[in-house]
């Protein structure tokens, strides 16, 4: 059993934090893992991605082969589409609908969302709204992790454990906001009645 996940977003949106939480949970559960990430120049407001591979068996490549990713988890709609060709034909996309506009030719958000909806298994999350509800718009990454939690091969309680350890040094308020963001993401995903891989129905947004 294995799971290959592409994490996508813009530098500064907290992709590496999502990766840290999932990877730590995987180590806790005795899984093999590899996680390739981007440092350096691209972090300055550019497109960033992380390849996260979990498996019960040996993992060879640090990069996910194109056509083998099970999931694209994206904190940004334009960045979602940048990596869809990594997905296997029945791969799944969980994407934020909140655009991060720092380029002049940023497309209409609706155009991006309708393209995402063409993917058979998709879930679109209003991460900005939920993050604000959790107390800080900076928790969008944890909203997205919460929305994905039920589809991951690691246990949800292990994810919350490492969210706590990640934000511990920033104080209780920050930990609480991130845990709430995670829970709100979980709830939206649960209510979204998202279809499993074998089912022929279209995915449905949790918007």
């Amino acid at each position, binding site marked *: 059993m294995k799971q290959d996940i592409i994490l996508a977003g*813009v*530098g500064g949106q907290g992709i590496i934090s999502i*990766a840290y939480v999932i*990877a*730590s949970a995987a*180590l806790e559960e005795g899984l*093999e*893992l*590899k*996680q*390739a*990430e*981007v*440092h*350096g*120049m*691209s*972090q*300055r*407001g*550019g*497109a960033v991605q992380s390849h996260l591979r979990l498996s019960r068996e040996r*993992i*060879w*490549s*640090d*990069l*996910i*082969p*194109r*056509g*083998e990713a099970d999931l694209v988890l994206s904190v940004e709609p*334009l*960045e979602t*589409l*940048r990596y*869809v*060709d*990594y*997905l*296997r*034909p*029945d*791969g799944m996309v969980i994407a934020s609908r909140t655009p991060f506009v*720092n*380029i*002049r*030719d*940023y*497309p209409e958000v609706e155009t991006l969302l309708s*393209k995402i909806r*063409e*993917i058979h298994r998709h879930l679109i999350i209003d991460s900005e709204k939920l993050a604000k509800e959790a107390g800080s718009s900076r928790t969008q990454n944890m909203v997205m992790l919460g929305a994905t939690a039920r589809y991951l091969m690691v246990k949800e309680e292990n994810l919350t454990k490492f969210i706590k350890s990640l934000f511990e040094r*920033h104080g209780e308020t920050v930990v609480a906001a991130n845990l709430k963001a995670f829970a709100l993401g979980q709830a939206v995903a649960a209510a979204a009645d998202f279809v499993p891989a074998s089912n022929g129905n279209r995915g449905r947004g949790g918007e």
Partner: protein
Amino acid sequence: MKLEILLGDEAVALGAIQAGLSAGYSYPGTPASEIMEYLIKVAAETKAFIASWSVNEKVAFEEALGVSFAGKRALVSMKHVGLNVAADPFMSSALTGANGGLVIVPADDPGMHSSQNEQDSRFYADFARIPCFEPSNHQEAYDMTRQAFDVSEKLGLPVMIRLVTRLSHSRSSVRPRDPRGQNKLRFGASRDWTLLPVNARRRFQTLLDSQADMVRLADESEFNSLRLSANNRSLGVLASGIAFNYVQENLSDLENPPSLLKVGTYPLPEKLIRGLVDHVETVLVVEEGYPLIERSLRGFFGVAGKTIRGKLSGDLPLTGELSPEAVRPSLGLKPLDRLDLGGFKLAARPPQLCAGCPHADTFHALSKALREYDKSNIFSDIGCYTLGYYPPYQAVQTCVCMGASVSMAKGGAEAGIHPSIAVIGDSTFGHSGLTPLLEAAAADTNMTVFILDNCTVAMTGGQPSYASGERLLRMIEGLGVAQNHIRVIEPLPKNLDKNAQVIKEEIDHHGLSVIVAVRECLEEAKKKRRSG
């Protein structure tokens, strides 16, 4: 010991610490920075060894060499192009040899994620004739680093660990082993370490004589392994470093898997390679970087009766980094089926200066001042400000290597460019800008040098800068720049007109001017606020 999740860079650092490291030196550069970040973090906790950023890679290398001369173990790390800066001591260190274990860790950047070229450091190891390890995963990065110190002390030579971005910046689990202690102080022999011709000739012969030992070590190394397939005499694959993973990733899709030779050490294991070549008709060489192994195998005339395939034959791409899918066609495999949304164009999102960055204000003022001149040129350097190339600034016309802005602006001015302008950051100036400015000051070249003092090495994550603040101003004056043409501006939107006026005055001064734009990096200021 317990498993730890580490970056490839961190696995090397931990391996070095537990091999009994006494001192580590480096200059920040992607993808190598995290080696020193990790060393500094552990050194701060344990106070057991020295770990510090150097002013540049040459200095870092020589500091490490001094530690080795003193009989203790040293590590020096840098990004690939940093080894160019350190190439002078590096090449000669193969002749002095190592007294205490000396390990050099360049991190290459195939695909140029954050670099100006994709040079392959294995060629440097080959050039200097020293051993090189090339890890394929995190555990190997840890194990090879420990072994590199042993080999260095056994052969009395510096040893290289070659990393690449995908290993440096990937995380995976590593199982560390029991640490060992450090060496005691024990001086090197002056007849070995004083490279006068009389000594250097003898030392070079000694180096040449040890090549056979290195090859024997490679043939016996646990990091090289040959698996011959009785059922497949047609194809054999020779794969090194992380390229080995990309081959493995695809093997299960092959009905009749080829023989496979994994290479992790250099000079190459000759017996193992002969074993593979004798067994098959065609050898496919898969390596990350330039075709070093493939070229060694082919020579001018190839191997009689055998076909050698790889990057030179066009079976694999000569540029960029490898990936599982890049390797598939060379193994005769079709691309995997993947999700297809039809063709659609996606807006690119290049890296850019942060909102409110002081460099942006400097570029705005500079552009405003330059409107009155039609033949200006801005020579840039390596740092965040290189992003001034992109819209909306489109302010810089060159970026070559550390320090090149100042020397190129001088050359440009001497060729007739006016205004000829250099833009360089404070840390880059400390790294390689002092010497060309010394020369420009002596010649009083008609050019304007901008030193952007944001008080940090911003692009690589905020390491400390040696050439910042008051010290920077004293340095500029000390190099001989006329005091009344050293101007300090504060790059802020409200100062736009005032700053443009200062710039114009200095451009119109016939001779050398230095304008220091001082404002702290926003990211660093934010970090400081957060940590109180």
